[in-house]
């Protein structure tokens, strides 16, 4: 595997990565801003995600929602997403529309605020509240992705608070608060731009210079609280049991693990695949197939880039199986992994699956661009992408076993458990009407 990669900086600090591929007349434009929920301060949570909405509300030369219309009229796809460590904005368009995609991203980087109004802010707050209801509050287990980071990091830690944010904080936010957040973080020196697919490099560089070159650097960013976190939780790891309107128990275990891109992160990736990837994994074979106490298992990392990542093991119980049974079974699996390690065949299976998934994902220009932006943002080196297969192949059973010994012990397991509520509102209503 060799993906051509060229990288350079503009004087204003914007880091640019170009990756040519002329297989199809398709080009992806992908912009990562180094701002996520971790950059928010207390009382001002939810702003990074709110901007994922506000950035589609128009800029000096683009009307509200016109960004969508222009890209779709050009035959392109687009979206944005928010994570603890970053937000990304991206378009994939027919290659002759490259200039449009670059121009749209530049217009909102340089000139978002002239188009921002109280009315737009109010509407998008309402949309975000509905997003929260839809994805979390009105969904079984939906609150897990707010509760787990809160459990795994102390309140002072930047990863602790909710990604979608406190609705009270969003309500309290003034237009000026929101604008100040934008001025602070959405600057060329805090962003990475990747272009992948069918383009002429000379033309792409000319467009990047014309659209992004004049945008001034930011005024510097405030220091964030420390991301340092001990490698384990210590003798009494956090544990929270949530009675909820759910059909079955679910146990989610978070282990502190090495940050994205470090050697230990690859060990964690393969450990996760041994535990939870597909039906040959330990958890599927043990808990779903053999014991039939679970209906769904998974293991994956959050890919956090500062201080500590999380390796998450997620088990949904079969109906009627107690949370104690599930929790005991998960602990037993992790105990065995820590004490006995993995064998060659298990590691080879995990490596083979990861390699195929990597190659499959790179078929798409949008994914190639996103991975290049990820490596550029987190590690300062998009060329790392070409070394990925080799990095996974270099992991040995000794390395995985050392990781398991160090990180999979009882002292490093924060547990979030959901249990069906004894008296659900439905049962109460039935009693009342009877």
């Amino acid at each position, binding site marked *: 595997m060799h993906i051509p990669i060229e990288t350079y900086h503009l004087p204003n600090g914007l880091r640019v990565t170009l990756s040519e591929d002329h297989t*199809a*007349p*398709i080009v992806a434009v992908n912009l990562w801003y180094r701002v996520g929920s971790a950059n928010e301060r207390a009382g001002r949570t939810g702003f990074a995600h709110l901007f994922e909405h506000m950035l589609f509300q128009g800029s*000096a*030369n683009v009307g509200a*929602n016109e960004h*969508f*219309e222009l890209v779709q009229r*050009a*035959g*392109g*796809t687009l979206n944005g997403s928010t994570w603890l460590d970053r937000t990304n904005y991206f378009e994939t368009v027919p*290659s*002759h529309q*490259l*200039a*449009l995609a670059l*121009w749209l991203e530049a*217009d909102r980087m*340089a000139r978002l*605020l*002239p188009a*921002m*109004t109280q009315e737009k802010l109010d*509407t998008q707050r*309402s*949309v975000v509240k*509905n*997003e929260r*209801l*839809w994805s979390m*509050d*009105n*969904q*079984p287990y939906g609150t897990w992705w707010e509760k787990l980071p809160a459990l795994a990091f102390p309140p002072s830690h930047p990863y602790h608070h909710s990604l979608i944010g406190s609705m009270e904080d969003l309500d309290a936010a003034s237009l000026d608060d929101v604008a100040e957040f934008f001025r602070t973080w959405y600057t060329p020196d805090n962003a990475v731009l990747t272009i992948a697919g069918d383009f002429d490099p000379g033309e792409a560089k000319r467009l990047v210079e014309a659209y992004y070159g*004049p945008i*001034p650097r930011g005024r510097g960013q405030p220091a964030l609280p420390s991301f340092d976190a001990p490698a384990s939780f210590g003798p009494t790891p956090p544990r929270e049991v949530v009675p909820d309107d*759910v*059909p*079955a128990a679910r146990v989610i275990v978070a282990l502190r693990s090495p940050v994205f891109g470090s050697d230990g992160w690859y060990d964690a990736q393969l450990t996760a695949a041994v535990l939870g*990837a*597909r*039906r*040959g994994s330990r958890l599927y074979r043990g808990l779903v197939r053999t014991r039939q106490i679970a*209906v769904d298992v998974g293991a994956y990392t959050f890919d956090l880039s500062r201080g500590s990542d999380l390796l998450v093991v997620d088990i949904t119980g*079969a109906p009627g199986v107690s949370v104690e049974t599930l929790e005991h079974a998960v602990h037993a699996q992790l105990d065995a992994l820590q004490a006995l390690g993995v064998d060659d*065949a298990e590691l080879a*299976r995990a490596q*083979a*699956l990861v*390699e*195929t998934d990597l*190659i*499959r994902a790179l*078929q*798409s*220009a949008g994914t190639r661009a996103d991975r290049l932006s990820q490596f550029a943002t987190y590690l300062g080196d998009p060329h790392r992408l070409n070394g990925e297969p080799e990095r996974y192949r270099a992991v040995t059973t000794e390395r995985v076993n050392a990781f398991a010994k160090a990180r999979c012990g009882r002292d490093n397991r924060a547990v979030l458990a959901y249990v069906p509520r004894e008296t659900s*509102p*439905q049962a109460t*209503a039935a009693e009342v009407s009877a």
Partner: protein
Amino acid sequence: MSHTIEPTMSDDFLLRGPARPGAAASRPWQFPTVERRTLGDGLSLLVAPAHALPLVSVLLVTDAGADADAPGAEGLAMLTARAMTEGTRQYDGAAFALAAEGLGTAIDASADWDGGYASFTALRKHVEPALGLFAELLTSPAFPEREVERLKAERLADIAHAEKEPRGLADEHFAASVYRDGSRFGRSAAGTRASVSALDADACRAYAASRWRRGGSTIIVVGDITGDQAERLIGAALRDFRGAAPSRVTVDDRRTASARRVVLVDRPGATQSELRVGHVGVPRTHPDYFPLVLGNAILGGLFNSRLNMNLRERNGFTYGAGSGFDWRRQAGPFVASAAVETGVTEPALRELLGELDRIRNDGVTADELSLAQSYLDGVFPLRYETSGAIADALAAMVTFGLPADWFTKYRERVRAVTVSDVQAAMQRHLDPAAWQIVVVGDAATIQPRVEAMALGPVAVVPGVLP
């Protein structure tokens, strides 16, 4: 509102910015060339070579969809497909999974309304051994009783989950309300508690023997392989995959006889209401397919669609509103949907119904149509970046019996649709007097308000599934 942030940048050029660019000359693009071959005894082979990456996707399409489930045995097609990977003559389920995963792939079998599918994507170097496992699944599935019983229990757990999940509840109740009693399409493709509980390993074995057959099946191979290589490898691997084509089953896809009505599915305390409005649509091969696809894009398919712009961007009622035709060989449903805050259930439902009336009565503008056409035309190459996506597209062509030039003619057919084509199709196929309206939400709060809208009879039902 008038309050606007004062920009901090003073440079005039910065405030104005460079002018919006035009498009460069577009580069031509062709759907991958498809080689059609026959492997004897009714098995067809489609090969689409693509050599950019060392990957191959293999997908078998067979006439073993949920539409063929007998009354009382709903869920058998899906259970059988799922159970095919759970053990063969040579391997038990765990060993089968491990053998495939050791090759960096997973061999999956599944079913939807119109077909049964077995597939994998592997690195080129692993294709031959993976094909051996693939053939094993097709020729000697064992259906161990223990595994079939486990999969049944997992389906029952899915139903329990769907009962706690407003989207699942809404979709199931909507399907039940739009078709006539007894229609296969009125019950979940994966089956009900009663129907799934009645299935067993013998039923799966008999179903596989009668419908997972060589005759009438097509195998699709996309990726880093030539037609000759694919024919040689597949021909050898599937030598023992036998059987004549099964007969096609017809589903009762007629609309319910009920006029417009509301089913209010009660979820006490729900913070949002899930809305579904629609009725039976048309089959995938209907001549109005293109006008309907374009009309729906304008109504609720694109982000800038009327439904989303109204309910989300203008009113902030929802995180997203949309609509769609569920395309099947026979008529699947047309549905418009949104999840809205409980307190705005009534105005949101009013706006949603209003948009359906408006597109039917007033049609679409030339500007709206040109946006939808530009999008569908332009995005066409983007849809086929991966071997898996190309294989899926070819599978749809096979399942629906689309002509061989489908992909080469698609873009011009999109471009040929006119404003009056769209309006005529919307008038023919959207029927407000027949809307079946499902609202999943907190009945105590919303029932009086929905009743006051006088949309038709309102039935309140508990939030459970059969």
